[in-house]
């Protein structure tokens, strides 16, 4: 019998995607992980729950988001470039898809409170938004460095009724915000759900978050059919933990499209990392020769993470998806290019994917190719930072 590999199916019983994933948490958190797994499996096959999830995303979340042909940029580059417009979703990024699902699940489990980590603040804002909608208490952990880089998002979360806790341990960025959220979760796990913001963490989070983001890919694949594009030659997304990439890849995993994830050069877990265990998962991590986790460095707070979701580590190991780094300098010019040529100011995270496409046209992306960009978020949150960098450079 020949076995047909289906990519991006469910992980095994231990939550493994190949050799990556699993569950590495304090025993105190194990019961909550098991409870969450059961609740998710039940909810995700319950038509009533799924209907509510889709209804909320339509009525509140602004879905479906369009696919926009980027005509001027396409003409400039000599490719057919399309953008899946997650920047147009409520709160300005794909993060809303995951938090709508997880907050509905929180209620279903009878919990009254959510905690979350955030890097750029996008996941924190999205969580605060979804929590406000359901009347859930919300506390967000954010690295001190990021509370400064993303001051406005801190204020947004507060306007939405959330409490923001600055984290001053370690590198004071996303990695430490996750540590602190996990530490806090131990103390309040009875009535509190940890609304993790990417396809990372202990099982079932990487799988659950991918499932809740897969709406991006499923919409996009239909939209490309409607646009008479069919299967694109390549699908490109930026990767921090990897949730927007996992979401869009899910719509094309078993097609002929190349799946390409773009990491920040200073946070490139596939390029610089090796297998390790952090934040509840076995994955690729940037670490030193002794297994101490190294700090990531990126212009964008949302990609400032030394790891990657375990399913991406597996997709990289099997060769189904490819991952490449992009440096800070290229990101700024890509952000300006998309703004000037298409009237879309992308998030700095998203600009990594744009920069890679611009760099690779005529190389690994032949002219004439059709390329789908996941435009994961809008750049409003980044304009102050970009202004100060551009002014300093001028």
């Amino acid at each position: 019998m020949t076995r047909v590999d289906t990519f991006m199916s469910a992980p095994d019983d231990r939550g493994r995607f190949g050799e990556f994933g699993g569950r590495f948490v304090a025993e105190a958190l194990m019961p909550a992980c098991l409870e969450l797994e059961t609740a998710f499996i039940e909810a995700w096959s319950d038509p009533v729950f799924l209907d509510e999830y889709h209804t909320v995303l339509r009525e509140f979340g602004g879905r479906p988001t369009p696919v926009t042909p980027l005509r001027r940029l396409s003409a400039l580059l000599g490719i057919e470039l399309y953008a899946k417009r997650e920047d147009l979703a409520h709160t300005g990024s794909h993060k809303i898809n995951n938090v709508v699902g997880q907050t509905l699940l929180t209620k279903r489990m009878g919990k009254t409170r959510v905690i979350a980590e955030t890097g750029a603040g996008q996941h924190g804002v999205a969580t605060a938004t979804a929590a406000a909608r359901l009347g859930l208490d919300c506390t967000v952990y954010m690295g001190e460095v990021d509370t400064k880089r993303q001051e406005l998002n801190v204020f947004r979360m507060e306007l939405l009724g959330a409490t923001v806790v600055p984290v001053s341990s370690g590198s004071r960025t996303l990695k430490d915000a996750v540590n602190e959220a996990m530490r806090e979760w131990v103390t309040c796990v009875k009535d509190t759900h940890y609304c993790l913001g990417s396809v990372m963490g202990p099982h079932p989070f990487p799988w659950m978050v991918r499932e809740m983001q897969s709406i991006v890919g499923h919409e996009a694949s239909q939209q490309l059919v409607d646009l008479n594009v069919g299967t694109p030659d390549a699908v490109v997304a930026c990767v921090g933990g990897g949730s927007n990439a996992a979401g869009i890849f899910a719509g094309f995993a078993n097609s002929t499209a190349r799946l390409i994830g773009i990491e920040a050069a200073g946070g490139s877990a596939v390029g610089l990392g090796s297998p390790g265990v952090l934040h509840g998962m076995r994955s690729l991590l940037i670490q030193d020769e002794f297994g101490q986790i190294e700090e990531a460095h990126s212009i964008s707070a949302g990609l400032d993470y030394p790891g990657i979701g375990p399913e991406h580590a597996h997709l990289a190991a099997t060769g189904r998806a490819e991952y490449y780094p992009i440096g800070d300098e290229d990101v700024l010019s890509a952000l300006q290019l998309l703004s000037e040529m298409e009237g879309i100011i992308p998030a700095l995270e998203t600009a990594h994917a744009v920069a890679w496409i611009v760099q690779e046209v005529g190389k690994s992306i032949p002219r004439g190719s059709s390329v789908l960009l996941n435009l994961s978020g809008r750049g409003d949150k980044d304009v102050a930072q970009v202004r100060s960098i551009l002014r300093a450079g001028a």
Partner: protein
Amino acid sequence: MKSLETQLRTLRASGRKALVPYFVAGLTPDWLHYVDAAIHGGADVIEIGIPFSDPMMDGVVIQEAAMRSLARGTTLDSACSDLRSLTSSVPLVAMTYYNIIHHYGLLKAAGALRAAHVTGAIIPDLTLEESGEWVHCCASDDVANIFLTAPSTDEDRVAKIANVCEGFSYASARMAVTGKSTDEGDAHRVVDTIRAATDIPIYVGIGITTPGQAQEVSSYADGVIVGSALVQQILSGATPQDIEATIRSFRQALDQS
């Protein structure tokens, strides 16, 4: 039975409550002097923390100590090489996060610990479900696998954990990371649940700060683990003599229980 467990069962049979202080390896250049002082003061087992950059189960005190120790260049190898110079026969137990031994190589790590006279290991982020390979690697090296049980662990899991736990069972007194606290939390209930599943010695840790608390807890547990309270003292500049005095006060409290 692993040799650590044989020793700790004998200790319990003698009627003595176990006192287990925790030290962060490499925290200061003279960190072994603190270990010696604790042994003089009446410690029965020494728990040695091997620092990790992302100590997810530790509160601010041990986080701070881990960062200081890492800044001094502490590694699994340096900790083991320091420990080899200890002359006491008091059992040593290592506590570290899974990535440290995963990165080092599990079999090699078990061997390195054993060569440093470490006869037990606590890996708090290594769940029962993921522990098979490590347990296997420890089998030939006589390193006991010590598992934590939490207040949230249900009876079913308590029994499963009891099945593989060696040396002693680590009963977490509360739903919290390491730190200081003023009460005994859920310790009594957790100990009772473990006791119903196994007759291995049961030690209580997480938040044990004062001799009074230790005495209270030892009325139903076989021993106590004291971490952040001691580490805090060392971070604030305590000398080995100060630590010896603290350990003596815990010893006295336990001997009176």
